[in-house]
């Protein structure tokens, strides 16, 4: 085994050890509190999760929320990137969009949720909310990356009449990519948090947010924790998947 591999292995063991310590602390606190409504430990949470996992309702809830939040995330990302490109090309569009982007960033998610509940109902609330949360993040990050593109290379491309697609691939992408990657990573986490929060407020039947809410009503703290862990896990998987696809396609060259 090389020194490098040994280092990775030792870092992995260290992380696992730290997580185990925290789980132990959590279990210890729950045993000390000794109240299953106030706090449950990791053992009860895993028990609740394994019971939920076997039900059709759990799996369909994940599919329900996943589709809407992913859909909102992708549409918000695409719109953010396209609007950033338009703003980069035409300063007037950037000036025109600035107040709207500021509003999108500043208005609390809860206010959007209530408004959208009135306007569009609760069926695809998580879709709209995650889209609205993702859009300004991707817009600002993409625009930042575009503005950071090396002007001297753009002049070179202009002189040589470099075809547009090659300019995008070889000049804009290397500049925008780090901004885009950070933006997508941030936006994914935000999409999940806001999407599930919207479901908790809007209560669409058969959603993860609804499951979370039901657990709260019936004081099923173990289920509440199990739903939370499920949300974190699905969000984590989605983030990894998006970043792997992105690194393999756009991150090359």
């Amino acid at each position, binding site marked *: 085994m090389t020194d490098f591999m040994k280092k990775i292995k030792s870092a992995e063991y260290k992380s696992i050890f730290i997580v185990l310590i925290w789980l132990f602390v959590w279990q210890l606190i729950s045993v000390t509190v000794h109240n299953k409504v106030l706090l449950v430990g990791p053992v009860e949470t895993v028990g609740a999760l394994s019971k939920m996992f076997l039900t059709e309702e759990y799996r369909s809830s994940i599919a329900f929320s996943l589709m809407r939040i992913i859909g909102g995330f992708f549409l918000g990302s695409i719109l953010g990137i396209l609007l950033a490109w338009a703003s980069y090309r035409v300063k007037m569009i950037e000036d025109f969009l600035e107040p709207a982007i500021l509003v999108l960033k500043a208005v609390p998610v809860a206010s959007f949720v209530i408004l959208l509940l009135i306007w569009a109902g609760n069926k695809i609330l998580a879709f709209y909310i995650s889209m609205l949360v993702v859009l300004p993040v991707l817009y600002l990050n993409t625009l930042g990356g575009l503005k950071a593109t090396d002007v*001297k*290379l753009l*002049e*070179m*491309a*202009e*002189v*040589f*009449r*470099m*075809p547009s697609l*090659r300019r995008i691939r*070889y*000049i804009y992408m*290397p500049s925008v990519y780090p901004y885009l990657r950070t933006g997508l990573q941030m936006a994914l986490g935000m999409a999940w948090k806001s999407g599930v929060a919207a479901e908790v407020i809007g209560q669409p039947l058969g959603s993860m947010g609804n499951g979370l809410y039901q657990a709260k009503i019936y004081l099923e703290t173990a289920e509440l924790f199990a739903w939370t862990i499920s949300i974190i896990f699905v969000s984590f998987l989605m983030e990894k998947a998006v970043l792997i696809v992105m690194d393999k396609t756009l991150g090359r*060259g």
Partner: protein
Amino acid sequence: MLIFFKDITKIYDKNQVLKNISFEIDTNADNKDILLRGPSGIGKTTLLRIAAGLERPDEGNIEITMGEAAHGGYGLRAGMVFQENRLLEHLSAVDNVSCVNASVSRQRARAELLEVLPEEALDKPVRELSGGMKRRVAIVRAILPPSDLLIMDEPFTGLDAETREKVIRYIMDRKGKRPLILASHDVEGLPPMRELILK
């Protein structure tokens, strides 16, 4: 074709960099190549940028006459070596030459680069090449695509005497009938050219 730079004046922040510069290039004449000279900061790069269409003069213009027809010169296709290399640092020398120019194949880029660079330098990312090697990549990139005019701003920076001689031969051989506007402090080894001195 007659390219007429007419009363070119350029002002930056109330500072007049170029004042009424006029000269013409007859692409059919023997003296079509121009050596641009003058002290640093006199406006040589600005004049070259105007010739390449990257900047517009505040006064004056470029006129092109082809037979009876005349039109503004900003549509001129230029092959340019900038003062800096302006290469895509993450790409190889071959990719730098072929990606930028849609009309240049990888095979041709490779064959031409071999004229001025060792083979082992062709496929490395250019960020791993020396300054002199990068300069040669920039020169080949400017020379290969079809153009109306070649513009070179201090193209021999970072080249030793032997390489410089080789590169000068390469440029003069490959430029064909295209006129060359060359700004260089060091004129050693250059073929005779019409001089335009900025004061």
